[in-house]
């Protein structure tokens, strides 16, 4: 049963992929309708949503400590005897990943349906939907895998789909480059992941999650400890290596650089892959291996610090971006930082909680942005928007909910999860006031830049040229293709609300963003109890603060959010004032706008030097040294032949002369004993 969860989308992938490969591709990419492939793809992911739901209910009926469903599909690699390497293609569902499967298939279904509308003008929808299904397959493998290599299979699989979908409009070189960058940067992370797996295997002899967990549970039951014979240093090394993998996949400093570029992909892709699901894989892995990470305070410290700094850093960049998707991308990086901050202070549950709420509101925001972009004929610059409130009322309403949720205002979902993280960052034994302060400042900045985005997009006066009269709407609408970025010649656009296939999913997500936080209300958290078997209370940081402190901090963070919102409202009410402020801090703004020049730094310090070195090695070593030596051997042979040849001049006189010398020498030797 379990294996069908990933298999359904795989079947969808095969149907759409084969249809594309056999029928559309050979005739030269004639345009096809998105509806049929879209429905096939949506149905296949919906089927696995239903199955996930059924299995979730089944788990729910089980006693808490027995909540595990396992299935071994086939043997993958078996080498050597008992001390060898044994790996099965096995899945295991427990209380942790059942939540992930629900989010992936649930949000995934909504985004598939949304894509039917969004991609209606695309020339190769079969290809698009097959990639989307393939992604869901890989993502579900990732969360369902019973061992690290199966997880890694999904891990690299989602990376592949990310690559394919970012570069979906491949005729644009920049988009193709963005896809390649995503893949390669992720490979840097995977390098660490691989080494981490190797170290785990040589240390524990297994890569299966349950076997590993058992190694940490001492003979007498619940009390966990580092297994005998394993040094804490090894545990730290393992955790840090695995975290390198997380830095890549979940876009943390210093490997976050691919995620903002990944916005080159179609917007539903950004929502599904680069906001709701794939980028949270790192948090999933840390939460999955919490029994190990908890034994390395050093690794946790690194994770918390990297998370907090990423959250802060990305927020600073988000303030100065004008592309609606770029702002959301940096906000995603920032929110992922929060999640790692939570994991790093030992509050894995809070991290997972934020994964779930973030999946709702960020998918909502991205799809909302997609709706805006769709309605604005591919315009993505928020300085050229404004006043969309009346023109796209549904999008406006749902986007507002997402905005309030990410700002962290009660009772929207983001409030509960973010507040829990901040509280844990402050109060847990691994936490500190510094981590809290960084998180809190980030929260204020988040409120500010999201309000800026919201205001510039939906409120104020329109800053674009509008086509008058609704009559031409459909002709204009149908003529533009998404990959062509077509805009009417005079720059005037007809702004329109998106079709129901797009607004429908938005409304569902809006509801989830509004009430999703209720699963984790502090002190009566259903989530915490549900996750107990996987993330034990003991692993959860013990709080040693007075309860009233929690309320004080909650007040502080809400107040901060309100201040951030209010300041942004005040600032962007009058655009001239905002421009003046920008003028005053032009230098800083330039740095932020250029993302702290990190890409340029990498290009100059890593990419270029390696490229030049490779060039030099090829020309100056391969060709100039090795080949010269080899050819040198040939020359020596030739030279020997040539030289020896000159002795044979054919001249009798020379021969006679040499003969004479020889004779004299011989006779001399015989007579005088010379030489």
């Amino acid at each position, binding site marked *: 049963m379990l294996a069908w969860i990933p298999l359904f989308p795989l079947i969808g992938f095969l149907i759409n992929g084969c249809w594309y*490969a056999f029928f559309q591709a050979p005739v030269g990419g004639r345009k096809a309708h998105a509806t049929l492939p879209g429905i096939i793809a949506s149905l296949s992911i919906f089927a696995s949503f239903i199955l996930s739901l059924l299995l979730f209910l089944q788990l729910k009926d089980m006693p808490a400590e027995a909540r595990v469903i396992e299935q071994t599909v086939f043997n993958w690699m078996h*080498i050597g005897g008992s001390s060898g*390497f044994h790996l099965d293609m096995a899945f295991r569902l427990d209380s942790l990943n059942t939540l992930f499967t629900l989010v992936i298939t649930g949000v995934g279904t909504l985004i598939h349906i949304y894509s039917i509308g969004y991609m209606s003008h695309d020339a190769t929808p079969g290809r698009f939907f097959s990639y989307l299904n393939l992604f869901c397959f890989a993502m579900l493998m990732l969360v369902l895998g019973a061992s690290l290599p199966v997880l890694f299979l999904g891990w690299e699989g989602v990376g592949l789909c990310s690559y394919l979908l970012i570069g979906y409009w491949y005729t644009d070189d920049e988009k*193709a480059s963005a896809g390649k960058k995503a893949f*390669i940067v992720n490979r840097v992370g995977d390098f660490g992941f691989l080494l981490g797996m*190797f*170290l785990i295997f040589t240390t524990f002899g297994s890569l299966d999650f349950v076997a590993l967990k058992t190694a940490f549970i001492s003979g007498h039951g619940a009390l966990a400890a580092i297994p005998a014979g394993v040094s804490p240093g090894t545990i730290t090394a393992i955790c840090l290596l695995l975290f390198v993998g997380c830095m890549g996949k979940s876009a943390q400093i210093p490997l976050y650089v691919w995620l903002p570029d990944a916005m080159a992909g179609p917007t539903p892709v950004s929502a599904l892959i680069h906001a709701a699901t794939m980028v949270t894989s790192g948090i999933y892995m840390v939460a999955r291996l919490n029994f190990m990470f908890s034994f390395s305070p050093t690794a946790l410290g690194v994770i918390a610090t990297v998370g907090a700094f990423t959250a802060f850093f990305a927020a600073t960049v988000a303030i100065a971006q004008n592309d609606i998707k770029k702002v959301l991308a940096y906000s995603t990086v920032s929110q992922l930082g929060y999640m790692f901050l939570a994991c790093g202070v030992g509050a894995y549950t809070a991290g997972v909680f934020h994964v779930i709420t973030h999946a709702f509101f960020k998918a909502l925001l991205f799809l909302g942005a997609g709706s805006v972009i769709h309605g604005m004929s591919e315009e993505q610059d928020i300085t050229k928007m404004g006043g969309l409130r009346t023109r796209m009322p549904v999008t406006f309403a749902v986007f507002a909910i997402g905005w309030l949720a990410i700002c962290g205002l009660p009772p929207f979902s983001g409030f509960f999860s973010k507040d829990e993280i901040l509280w844990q960052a402050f109060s847990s034994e691994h936490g500190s006031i510094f981590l809290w302060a960084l998180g809190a400042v980030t929260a204020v900045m988040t409120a500010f830049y999201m309000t800026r985005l919201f205001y510039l997009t939906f409120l104020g006066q329109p800053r674009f040229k509008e086509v008058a009269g609704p009559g031409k709407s459909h002709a204009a609408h149908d003529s533009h293709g998404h990959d062509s970025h077509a805009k009417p010649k005079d720059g005037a656009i007809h702004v329109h609300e998106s079709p129901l296939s797009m607004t429908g999913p938005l409304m569902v997500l809006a509801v989830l963003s509004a009430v999703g936080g209720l699963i984790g209300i502090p002190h009566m958290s259903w989530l915490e109890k549900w996750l107990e078997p996987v993330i034990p209370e003991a692993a959860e940081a013990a709080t040693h603060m007075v309860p009233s402190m929690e309320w004080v901090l909650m007040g502080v963070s809400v107040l901060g959010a309100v201040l951030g919102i209010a300041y942004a409202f005040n600032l962007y009410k009058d655009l001239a004032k905002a421009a003046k402020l920008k003028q005053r801090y032009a230098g800083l703004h330039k740095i932020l706008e250029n993302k702290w020049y990190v890409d340029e730094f990498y290009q100059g310090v890593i990419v270029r030097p390696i490229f030049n070195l490779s060039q030099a090695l090829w020309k100056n070593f391969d*060709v100039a040294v090795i080949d010269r030596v080899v050819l040198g051997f040939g020359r020596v042979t030739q030279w020997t032949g040539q030289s020896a040849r000159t002795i044979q001049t054919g001249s009798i006189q020379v021969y006679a002369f040499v003969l004479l010398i020889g004779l004299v020498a011989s006779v001399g030797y015989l007579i005088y004993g010379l030489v």
Partner: protein
Amino acid sequence: MDWFNSHVLSVVVFFPLVWAVFGLLIPTTNESGRNALKYWTLIGSLLTFAFSLKIYYAFQANGAAFQLTELAEWIPGLGTSYSLGMDGISLWLIILTTFLSPIVILASFTAVEEKLRGYYFLLLALETGMLGAFVALDVFLFYVFWEVMLIPMYFLVGIWGGKDRIYAAMKFFVYTMVGSLLMLVAIFFLAYQHKLQMGTYSTALLDLYKVHIPGGGFTSPQSLLFMGFALAFAIKVPLFPLHTWLPDAHVQAPTAGSVILAGVLLKMGGYGFLRFAFPLFPDAVATFQIPFMILAAIAIVYGAWVATVQPDMKKLVAYSSVSHMGYVVLGLFSMNAIGVTGSIYQMLNHGVSTGALFLLVGMIYERRHTREISDFGGITKVMPIFAIIFMIVTLSSVALPGTNGFVGEFLILLGAWKTSPGLAAISALGVIFGAVYMLWLFQRVMFGPVKNKENEKLKDLSFREIAVMVPLLFCIFWMGVAPNFFFRKMEPSIERFLTRSTATAVARASVPSSSSIAAFFSKKN
């Protein structure tokens, strides 16, 4: 039928050659004759493949060391006999050879149009040479097959090759010759030692196992003999820094030559280590383990780096071979079941994936008569089927999990990690750089706008070309998902190989760990 069953190895080895001789009788003056010759050769290679499946079914994965053995007297004075046999290690290499041969023959149908009879004769003769080398159990017989396959390859490059074919063919020939002559000296020395110790000359592999040769240290007789063999094999693999013949040979060779060269001939090096160098000189292997692993690690990173900056597609793939074959050597010298299994698997993978890459490059070369990467761009738009296939092969080459490449690389790195974490970590950088050169190649050729006018009207793959690729694509996924199918047959042989090659653990412990580099990289010292 009885005769066939007891001589199945001989049949598989010599069938292509005999078939090719009859092919010479087909007149190629007119079109139908030429087609007849092509199909005659194709059928011959398909029949060979069918016969080789008999080997698969006859082989018992838990039986005796060498199976399907054949023995006939040949040169009694030297103690040399016509002795054939196979085990789980050679099984898949034999099948890889017979599997790739029909593919390259089918791929040659339009690529080669001149001197057809010679071309197809040499292809089949080459197959006989390769198969013979994989089943020879006599060292001298192995040497003969080893040299026999050199000659057809030399002519394939030298006659049907590109512009600088003479230079490339000569370089290939001289490089290989230098290595194999030292091997021949080592073989004679071994036979002589056998005479001294046992009373008679012998070149039978199993006899030579019993010869005692003092080992330990870099200058011991065993080490010198090992180097005699190892040099020949390292050139063939090719191991850094002996790889420079490969890019030239690949670029100049016709597509079929490149595929066979990468797919099978390079494997001969790895196979030589497995069958001869390791079991004959276990002490020397222990001595040279870390130095060779260091060279392998360099090869992996170096090959990937140099591949990145190549302007010519075929040269890029050639350097990627250096990188991928570095993994093979790394796994072999890690000397544990995981690493060796991965290494043998990687040989098969490389045959499939790199063979497929060369075929794809050949297909696009036939259309445009250029291999310069900068001449292309946006090909996906014009050749969508080609794009799909190229993408799958690329993924296999970058070792994406689910494809064959991952299984090999993962096991090799894991095995190497058990021996030397430091070197495994350096080698694992290949995971990153492998993605760099392949994806960049893919982007420059396939993505972006169609800049070059000549590319606008390219025809997508024909039915024949798709038929050439489909078996390889099938293998990419099959080998990635169900490696156990292959491991099952290999496992007992690998265990036996390891027992034999690490037999002198005591001697190994006494190897002076004088080299500080060795001490640094080797956990076990």
